[in-house]
């Protein structure tokens, strides 16, 4: 129990420090920090609809955080999550408006499946490149993100464009009602799906044989090879699942929030997954509170701007500060020397770079 508490120390301390630093910045820019933070809090948790919005914002962050964290377990840094997310969102939109006249019970899972498949296959491509040619997944991931952005731009501008009269922008038609997510007792269905996904991922990493193989590969390629792990299959399998998770995030965003695919609606979500994964200490269940925190900041930013007059770029600054303090946890440990930090509190990001097969 104490060990568990200790693993929360770095993230919690980082968040606190980031908010304190953010408060100083707010003060220097002429706003009242307390007033601003109260507005932020009210905008995120003030009433039922704002809580629901917070969860809605947290959902894609959980999915992308899981995608990044899962790949990190095998020592892979899946920076291509953004592209996988985009393809997932796009595929779910196509399944959502193209397939007609089937009941919700089939349509919703069908669109989800389309999104997961699209994201998964795109992840698999990057996994295969790594497994067979040794191409670093960070490089291919960045390239694949560009391909995904431009490809989806093209697809929504030409073959899948919304041809309804009066429309002048590139976007797909709206998805049908049968493929949209309903709310379950005020909680967005997507959020429930995200929680289930997080538990599943945690179980796989912890108890499944494949999860064990992933961790072995993550802790050292050579050791893994020596102990008879099929490294290529593990690398490809990891990227397939990681991509499917990001794709699921895209599908949920399309079916639950945007209700169509439109360029510019999903920018940056894949990269924010990195923040979430690190803030959640790369633990599938730690990602949930991390995502809710960032989701709350996004949901509350509007209220902060409206009633406290704070430019909402400050949210980006605080987010960046959180990430900074989490990754540079040495700073935190120096500042609070009285605390016994948990053993192995070091983030093992570096393995992502050493994993040449």
């Amino acid at each position: 129990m104490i060990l568990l508490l200790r693993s929360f120390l770095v993230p919690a301390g980082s968040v606190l420090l980031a908010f304190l630093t953010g408060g100083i910045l707010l003060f220097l820019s002429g706003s009242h920090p307390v007033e601003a933070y109260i507005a932020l809090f009210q905008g995120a948790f003030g009433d039922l609809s704002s809580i629901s919005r917070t969860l809605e914002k947290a959902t894609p962050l959980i999915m992308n955080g899981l995608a990044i964290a899962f790949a990190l377990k095998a020592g892979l840094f899946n920076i291509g999550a953004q592209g996988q997310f985009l393809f997932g969102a796009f595929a779910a939109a196509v399944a959502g408006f193209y397939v007609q006249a089937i009941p919700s019970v089939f349509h919703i899972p069908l669109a989800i499946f389309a999104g997961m498949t699209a994201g998964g296959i795109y992840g698999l491509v990057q996994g295969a490149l790594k497994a067979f040619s040794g191409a670093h997944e960070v490089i291919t991931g960045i390239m694949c993100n560009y391909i995904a952005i431009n490809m989806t731009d093209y697809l929504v501008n030409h073959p899948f464009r919304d041809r309804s009269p009066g429309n002048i922008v590139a976007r797909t038609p709206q998805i049908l009602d049968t493929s949209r997510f309903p709310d379950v007792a005020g909680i967005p269905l997507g959020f429930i799906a995200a929680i289930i996904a997080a538990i599943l991922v945690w179980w796989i990493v912890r108890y499944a044989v494949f999860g064990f193989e992933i961790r072995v590969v993550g802790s050292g390629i050579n050791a893994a090879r020596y102990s008879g792990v099929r490294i290529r299959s593990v690398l490809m399998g990891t990227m397939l699942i990681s991509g499917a998770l990001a794709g699921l995030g895209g599908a949920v965003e399309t079916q639950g929030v945007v209700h169509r695919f439109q360029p510019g609606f999903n920018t940056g979500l894949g990269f924010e997954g990195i923040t979430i994964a690190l803030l959640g200490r790369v633990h599938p269940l730690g990602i949930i509170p991390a995502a809710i925190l960032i989701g709350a900041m996004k949901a509350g930013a509007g209220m902060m701007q409206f009633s406290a007059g704070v430019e909402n770029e400050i949210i980006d600054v605080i987010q960046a500060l959180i990430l900074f303090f989490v990754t540079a946890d040495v700073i935190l440990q120096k500042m609070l020397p009285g605390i016994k930090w948990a053993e192995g509190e070091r983030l093992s990001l570096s393995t992502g770079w050493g994993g040449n097969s």
Partner: protein
Amino acid sequence: MVDRALPAICIYCWIFTIILFPATAMSGCGDGKTFCIGLVTDVGVIDDKSFNQSAWEGVQKAGAELGAVIKYMETRDAKDYEQNIHMFAKNNYDVILTVGFALGEATIQAAGKYPRIAFIGIDQFQAKPVHNVAGLIFREDIAGFKAGALSSMLSKTNIIAAVMATDLVPPVAAFQKGYKAGARYINPDIKIISSFHPGGLDASFTDPEWGASTAAQAIAQGADVVFAAGGLTGNGALIEVAAHRGKYCIGVDTDQWFTVPSARSCLVSCALKQIAPAVFTLIKLAHQDQFPEGNYYGDVALSSFHDFDKKIPEKIKQDLLEIESRIKDGRITISADE
């Protein structure tokens, strides 16, 4: 020990302040006396030197004249359109402006939910009139006509050019159509080199290199006046023309004298959409309970000639005024086809 307790103390202080300070007081919107005007930007900042800023200038003017409470919300994420509009609506604002085509759907939706609030949608064509929504749109063909007429009058080589973003966007196509018509109205034999960007919606407004090379080509073919319409692509063309001595360029939408200062050496004028005055008028109409539903056409005009004012012959200025009045009373009509 103190070190260890520090985070806990901070958290306590935090929770304590949240309990101590309840919701901040409201501004009095909705009490029947205070008139409140809210503006929601498209993704971007309020001082964008473009539509957001022009609309906000109109709001500020109306606010000063009516003694109204004014406030804007900058949209960060396209998913927040609805929420940002809702923020004003929930606080009983009387008029809510939304800037840009992209907010059209969210505006109509909010209008249905808040039938007592007047919504002004800038650049939002209303296919089906809703009683509390006015779509502020502009006749780009008329703006283009004026630019075309001016180009034709300025040209010495009798060759002029138009460098445009994609014709997939109806306003761009309308600008070009009007430009040709205006140029031919002055000189039926003028040669017009007109090019649309071949890319799609995303690329065609953000390709200054294409704009520059296309403008350079047109100049090489003898054009001495270039009309550029299309975001950064157009700006690229303007800047290119500025590098050629003795050539003129004409900008679009807002007064680009201020937004593209590096084109000042060629920029004679701009085909303006006069957003601020139209916003001002619409807000006043809403205040007098005479809010118009459906589409409201704002004025289009050529901007001030700035440094070129002395170089433009009085004859041309007179002719432009004449054209203006002929368009107003219908003696000039711009046909649907070229």
